[in-house]
């Protein structure tokens, strides 16, 4: 049996798939001790732990440690003269008219920042050699005195030549064997010292947190007789054996949303959809991601709490729009939705827990696009009147009916989400019309069709159990890791040969690492070169498959880069300016042997009925149907509400829905 346990902000979800089908369990999270919630889910599911072969886990523990600055005492070591890299940052402000602007707080303070006397240059040559005796005399006693449990080492130009960083690490370990040391060259090999130093300190800071978490969790699993494989999700969309997370802590910072993207990608791939935009709408936020040819887009420009993290992560764009987002009118008279959220407590007004401001969930209740009985399978009491009451002032302001006001709020929330999708598609040179929209999360299926329509997307594919897609994604994901290398070289006549050499070198390194992690050797490789016009500072990623590499010419490499640059920046296609390689990224993947199959849960019984809903600014008559009851091949015309135990799918007028042989529900817009 395979089991995925995903710890979210409000709920912890469990999806188990075995010979006897699918089982879904939802329990409240325990914010202080996420492993407690995860274990509760395991107990509540009643699954015998000894029968679980494959347990995959996703947790917010690292993210919370950063957001609440609850990591372990961490020191930062850098080149002499540059102790204040973390404090000075990039010297800019993200809000230009804010007179009391404050910088994001680094996770390591100034008192814990130290220097070593050394200097390496941009070409990797050593300008000033590091003297080990001096390190032992000054740095080591300071680290001891501070009682640090983790140390981040980031030296200038360490991305080109890591010899000094390694020496510092070895010296610290020699004298303080219990300290966890993270070096920048082992974390990210990108230039720009502030970003690299921050990435390294974040990694060092959460490392002890992750280590302890995994130890605790593994021990408890063993106590309960678990003998299977225990793995942990990463923010790059793959998992790693729990043991291998040591030294890779920075990779778990955004794992929750990543799991959902992978789960959705895998499930709809069964129905032959490989170009998708994933849409995960939860209680407080919406996450969108572009997936091309079955591959989610990656980025290395992710930020957490204003701090840059320069490792490849799934390029998931998050905005503050979810069921709990507050609907308001600003002092200039503009209707707004979010980014503030009513959160889980008090939650939307209709929860009856004292929420006094209208939210998107309240709007759905008013529009009757979500039935009060659909919340937690009817276990939750919904106050319809409270929802109406809080929407009254908005309706009055715009001289509308309450239903119109609620409808306007939903439309505006949709528009905010449309803009988020444009940011990851049109702004990067991808046309959303070449993609299908794949909604999941509690509220994704409610909003998807309207959003698709605004983006001129023709098809929406809704996976089964859409409300717990992240937990499914955990067991549907492959094992994966990245190898990176910075090597600047102009693209000349020998570019093709150079590229092949780099590939061979990186592949050998990746195979060695996989061996160390006990991953079998059936690896799949994806190779990307980061390229730019000489003189630019930001690179455009260009991918090359192993097949490409075998026969590609230097001229073709150049052309491929120019076309990519044109796509994003609107110039470059016909440029004869010199081009260079800057860095390379090799992803190596161990694909899971067999995909666990997600199915519609069949024991969800609701009676089909006629319903009214307010959508598109008018009342409409439609049908309410249980998703599990739809016979494959049957087409259901909108307006309709299709429910499963985890979410409600809204099929608006003008759309039809059908369930395919893989239990995906396909929405099509009428021609």
């Amino acid at each position, binding site marked *: 049996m395979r089991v995925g346990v995903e710890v979210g902000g409000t709920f912890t979800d469990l999806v188990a798939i075995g010979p006897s089908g699918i089982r879904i369990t939802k329990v409240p999270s325990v914010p202080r001790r996420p492993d407690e919630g995860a274990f509760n889910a395991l107990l509540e599911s009643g699954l015998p732990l000894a029968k679980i072969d494959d347990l995959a886990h996703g947790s917010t523990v690292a993210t919370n440690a950063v957001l609440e600055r609850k990591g372990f005492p961490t020191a930062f070591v850098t080149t002499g003269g540059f102790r204040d890299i973390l404090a000075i940052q990039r010297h800019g402000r993200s809000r230009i008219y804010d007179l009391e602007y404050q910088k994001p707080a680094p996770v390591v303070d100034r008192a814990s920042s130290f220097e070593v006397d050394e200097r390496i240059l941009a070409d990797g040559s050593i300008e000033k050699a590091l003297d080990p005796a001096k390190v032992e005399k000054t740095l080591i006693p300071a680290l001891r005195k501070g009682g640090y449990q983790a140390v981040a080492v980031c030296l200038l130009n360490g991305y080109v030549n890591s010899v000094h960083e390694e020496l510092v690490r070895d010296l610290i370990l020699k004298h303080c064997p219990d300290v966890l040391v993270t070096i920048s060259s082992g974390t990210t090999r990108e*230039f720009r010292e502030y970003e690299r130093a921050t990435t390294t300190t974040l990694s060092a800071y959460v490392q002890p947190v992750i280590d302890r978490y995994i130890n605790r969790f593994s021990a408890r699993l063993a106590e309960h007789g678990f003998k299977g494989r225990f793995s942990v999700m990463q923010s790059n969309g793959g998992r790693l054996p729990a043991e291998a997370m040591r030294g890779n802590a920075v990779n778990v910072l955004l794992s929750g949303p990543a799991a959902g993207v992978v789960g959705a990608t895998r499930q709809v791939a069964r129905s032959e959809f490989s170009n998708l935009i994933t849409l995960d709408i939860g209680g407080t936020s919406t996450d969108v991601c572009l997936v091309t040819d079955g591959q989610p887009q990656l980025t290395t420009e992710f930020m957490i709490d204003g701090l840059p993290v320069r490792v490849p992560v799934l390029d998931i764009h998050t905005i503050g729009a979810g069921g709990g987002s507050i609907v308001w009118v600003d002092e200039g008279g503009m209707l707004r939705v979010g980014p503030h959220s009513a959160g889980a407590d008090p939650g939307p007004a209709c929860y009856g827990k004292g929420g006094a401001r209208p939210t998107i969930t309240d709007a759905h209740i008013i529009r009757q696009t979500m039935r009060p009985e659909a919340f937690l399978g009817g276990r939750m009491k919904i106050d319809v009147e409270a929802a109406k009451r809080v929407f009254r002032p908005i309706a009055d302001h715009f001289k509308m009916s309450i239903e119109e006001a609620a409808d306007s709020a939903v439309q505006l929330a949709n528009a905010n989400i449309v803009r988020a999708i444009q940011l990851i598609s049109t702004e990067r040179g991808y046309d959303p019309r070449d993609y299908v929209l794949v909604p999941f999360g509690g509220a994704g299926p409610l909003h998807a069709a309207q959003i698709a329509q605004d983006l001129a997307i023709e098809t929406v594919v809704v996976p089964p159990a859409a409300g717990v897609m992240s937990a499914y994604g955990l067991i549907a994901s492959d094992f994966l890791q990245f190898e990176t290398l910075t090597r600047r070289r102009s693209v000349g006549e020998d570019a093709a040969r150079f590229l092949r050499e780099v590939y061979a070198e990186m592949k050998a390194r990746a195979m060695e690492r996989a061996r160390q992690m006990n991953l079998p050797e059936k690896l799949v490789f994806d190779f990307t070169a980061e390229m730019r016009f000489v003189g630019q500072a930001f690179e455009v990623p260009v991918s090359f498959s192993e097949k490409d590499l075998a026969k590609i010419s230097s001229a073709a490499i150049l052309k491929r880069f120019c076309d990519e640059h044109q796509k994003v920046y609107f110039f470059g296609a016909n440029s004869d300016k010199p081009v260079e390689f800057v860095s390379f990224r090799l992803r190596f993947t161990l694909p899971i042997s067999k995909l666990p199959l997600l199915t519609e849960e069949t024991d969800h019984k609701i009676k089909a009925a006629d319903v009214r809903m307010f959508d598109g600014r008018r009342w409409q008559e439609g049908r309410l149907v249980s998703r599990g009851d739809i016979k494959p091949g049957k087409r259901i015309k909108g307006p309709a509400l299709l429910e499963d135990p985890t979410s409600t799918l809204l099929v608006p007028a003008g759309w039809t829905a059908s369930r395919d042989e893989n239990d995906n529900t396909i929405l099509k817009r009428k021609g």
Partner: protein
Amino acid sequence: MAAGSARSKTAARKTRAPADKKANVKLDPVDYAVISQGLIAAAKEMGTKLVRSSYSTIVREAQDASAALFDRHGNVIAQAELIPMQLGPMSEIFRACAAIYPPETLKEGDFYINNDPYGGGQHLQDVFIFSPIFYEGRLVGFSGTTAHHLDLGGGNPGLTPDAVDVHAEGIIFPPSLYNYDRDWNGGSLERLVTSNVRVPAQTVGDFYAQFAANAVGAERIRQLCDKYGATVVMQAMEELIDYSERRFRAALKEVPDGVYHGEAYVDDDGLSDEPLQVKAKVTVKGDSIAVDFDGTCAQVRRNLNCPWASTISATLAAIKSALTSPDIPFNEGVKRPISISAPKGSLVNPNYPAPVRARMLAAYRCFNAVMHALAQIVPDRVIADGNDSTDVTSISHLDGTRYQVYLEVYGGGYGAGPRKDGCDAVDSPLANCTNTPVEATDMDFTHFRIVGYGLIPDSGGAGKQRGGLSFFRSFEILKDDVNFAIYSDRFRLPPLGLFGGENGKRAACEVMRAGKKIPIASKSKVYLRKGDILTLFTAGGAGYGAVGERPREKIAADLKQGYITKGAARAVYGQKG
């Protein structure tokens, strides 16, 4: 002001810009919210892409560039919030072009270009380019960008401290009209520029990035027109301006009426020791506000003169940041309730051909003078003085036939505010340049190496809220005959504390040569030798509120982090170390 002297004045406008109002059907609130957020997002995307596709370190690393979208009359609709200084008067710069080449005569591919300080522009380095946006043959708006160009010729690479007039500062593009296909892209204008700048690969590359960003903005506007129709989009543009105006006027109504005075000083003009005074009279009346710089000193012979557009910009930034909430979109609507005037021939409204390269220093004193006046009305909305200078350094070298030019712009400590300590080591309020990473300079330049970059303890003025710390940056010079040029301020006159807060520490610049310290003046040019260590120290922010009111735990935290030294804790706060 003296009788008979000329003055410039921007008028507060009650009414909207002229527009064809016939088709003014009621704009749907959802359409309006969607289109206006789309316009703001498009402007932001232009800014991001401009920075990311550019070539010079001053644009790609320091992000000294800005972008905005305009309606078809040239009113700013939405902007990428990058550099306040460049954004304020973009429509004035546009109008100078439109007055000669009316927008309705433009065709696809045309563009306006302007950097003329005496034709609506600021200083030559900020070149503004505006591209018309057509939808189905109809002019619907403009996209515009500016970038600080690394070198535009002139008397010295990057920066000419001793320029006698604007002609010595570089190439002037008067308000003019060109066509991209005909004149750029290998055409005559591109060749003219290429021949007149010292680092053409970078400068011309940055121009391309500007054109591309303009194209991005145009494409996004056309997509909005596809969906909503050009008429609705133009209507939403107009409404967005009205919206900002409405919100700003509502905020102004809260401010007590009255006439308030403030003043501030630039250290000197680089020739004498005489401080240069900027005086502001701020009149608040109902929902409008007027600022008059009457009494400000006369223009000077060196490049400290602040052209009219820059004075407008600095004044707008001070008022916008102090009196409005940060989320009011900055556009033409914010400018309508404000009128600004200044005598011609003064430091803040100079006559041709006065040099203007270092106009930021006087612009900051406009900002400070307005802030000092506002401190009397709204003490809980203003901050104390900070570094408040754009400290610009140019370190250049000619190696055979190849120039290397490294330009860097520095801030320092922010002034403390009513609720928070001033921000440490950050660019000053009118600018927002990021630093060039040390590893980027290591990669790109061979004539110097950065050997130190850190905070300066005790540089922030003490107070209930402490001023932000300033920082130093040290360079080892690796070749002989390296050209160093600087303009900076606060070397003599420190940032002033507010309501009992102490002054911030002054700025300085020095060279260590063979064990001897050589001070460098704030506005000067020198040649450096191999082995010299050059260090710039920027100014610290001043404190806000009485020193005695600072909580002990904050003093202890400052001590622990080394933001203040034990000696200072004792001397200033009376705290035992």
